[in-house]
């Protein structure tokens, strides 16, 4: 039942050229990053051509990919906020709630279906990027990164789901979601630049750590945060936000008005 709902939601979302836009923006970001970071590349010391290629892929492409985190966050935030607020304003929430046996399934299908397209397009763009520069694929890191991107996307989705439920209306939802996405990313960047990620207590704030993880996991430096700790914490945050959304939807939000 929920799968049917998700399938329809995804079909509805992808009516718009979301994937195409996403891919174009990603490629522009990668190109810009490569253009403005030649200095970093010159610091690399490689012992063989294959090692040089691998380092290039890790230092340049992977770092470029890490910069797409911002885009995923904003895009997912907007998508969830748009989707929920539009459903509410135009009456689809009302229609669905007279059909679905539980409101929880509506929320779940909404969040997963809104998070999947950005995640899938991120993975797709990454693979395409690798093909473009013909380098050896850092497989393990890539898989970890994909998981982190999915968690990040789900985190932002669940956060903005709650926010858009509170805001109810389309424009406030969009504004709040964008501000939240921008704000959390700004902090994240600041923390990385000031190397605050070295302080372990910051690991309790998952979104702020994603960049750190993306940075250090590929540098394999001594300050690497253990993903085995980060992943369960992230999942806990996502579940907590979803529960809060469900509570808000059921008990506080008056759908009919």
């Amino acid at each position, binding site marked *: *039942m929920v799968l*049917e*709902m998700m399938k*329809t939601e995804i*079909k*509805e979302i992808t*009516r718009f050229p979301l994937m195409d836009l996403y891919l174009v923006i990603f490629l522009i970001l990668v190109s810009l990053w490569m253009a403005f970071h030649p200095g970093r590349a010159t610091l690399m010391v490689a012992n063989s051509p294959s090692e040089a290629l691998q380092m290039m892929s890790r230092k340049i492409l992977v770092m470029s990919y890490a910069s797409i985190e911002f885009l995923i966050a904003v895009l997912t935030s907007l998508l969830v906020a748009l989707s929920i607020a539009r*459903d509410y304003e*135009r*009456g*689809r929430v*009302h*229609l*669905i*709630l*007279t*059909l*679905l*046996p*539980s409101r929880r399934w509506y929320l779940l299908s909404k969040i997963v279906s809104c998070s999947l397209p950005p995640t899938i397009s991120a993975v797709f763009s990454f693979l395409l990027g690798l093909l473009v520069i013909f380098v050896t694929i850092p497989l393990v890191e890539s898989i970890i990164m994909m998981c982190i991107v999915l968690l990040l996307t789900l985190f932002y989705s669940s956060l903005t789901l709650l926010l858009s439920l509170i805001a109810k209306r389309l424009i406030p939802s969009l504004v709040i979601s964008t501000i939240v996405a921008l704000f959390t990313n700004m902090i994240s960047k600041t923390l990385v630049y000031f190397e605050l990620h070295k302080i372990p207590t910051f690991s309790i704030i998952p979104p702020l750590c994603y960049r750190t993880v993306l940075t250090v996991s590929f540098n394999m430096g001594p300050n690497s945060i253990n993903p085995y700790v980060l992943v369960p914490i992230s999942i806990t945050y996502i579940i907590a936000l979803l529960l809060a959304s469900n509570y808000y939807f059921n008990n506080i939000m*008056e*759908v*009919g*008005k």
Partner: protein
Amino acid sequence: MSDVVLFEEVSKRFGDVRALDNVTFRMSENINFLLGPNGSGKSTAINLMAGLVRRDSGNILILGRDPHDIYKIIRKVGFLLEKYWFYESLTGYEHIVLAAKLKGIERPEAAARKAVEMVALGEYSEKPIAGYSKGNLQKLALAHAFLGNPELVILDEPFANLDPPSSKHLIRVINELSRGGVKFVISTHVLSYIEELRGHVVMLDKGRVIYEGDLRDILNKIRGLIVVKGRPLDTLASILESAGFKYTILDDKIVVKTSSVNELSKILKMAKDLESFELKRGIIELEELFRLGGATWFSK
């Protein structure tokens, strides 16, 4: 006869607006009407029945269950809400199949086909919803309400956006289904559409129940009203006044409550100062009726 819908001292506020004020009524007939002008609280009552809004106080039972447990009997109840929006990338038929699956109906395709036929959506059912007219959207919403042989169908403004033939078709469907034992709660402010139906009426005004009774009685009361248009209006009013008729001025016309139409017509024909006049007898819509102070005519 067991209650289809029961409201006991139900109140609901939206901020400063009191949408329902200590409302008590029961509906147990095959066809039940929730009537009232715009803003009387009908849609709030329907949303309360659907469990989409929480009441501030009181008790509500739908087929013996609290609306917030309605998910346990969701297959038995079909809703047409005032507000709806579909997945526009789907065709009408696909949307109803999806709805049938979400409702957990067995053989969703067959149920969807039946619902589409019931509302006479015709060839449009195979076309994407994005291109639907308002009338076809309303038919599609009605098909969702009739999906899967429900025991109770709750319809909020079912005739909105429907053309006269479609409205007549809907009346026929409602009559047929109700003869087969399906219960209906129909909320509307358009009396002329429901003339051909019979059933129990709960009339709301400003969030209060002002009348409970049979639809025939209401229609008979309204049929006793005659609309008179004439020029000059003040002359017409003074003629009616001197002849001893009870009347109310409404914009450019006067509504007279009388059973002696012939007498009224005769008096107006004899009046020398009247340039022209026109008499109209029939159903006056609720909006006009309430502007005339109709609420007092339906005191409980």
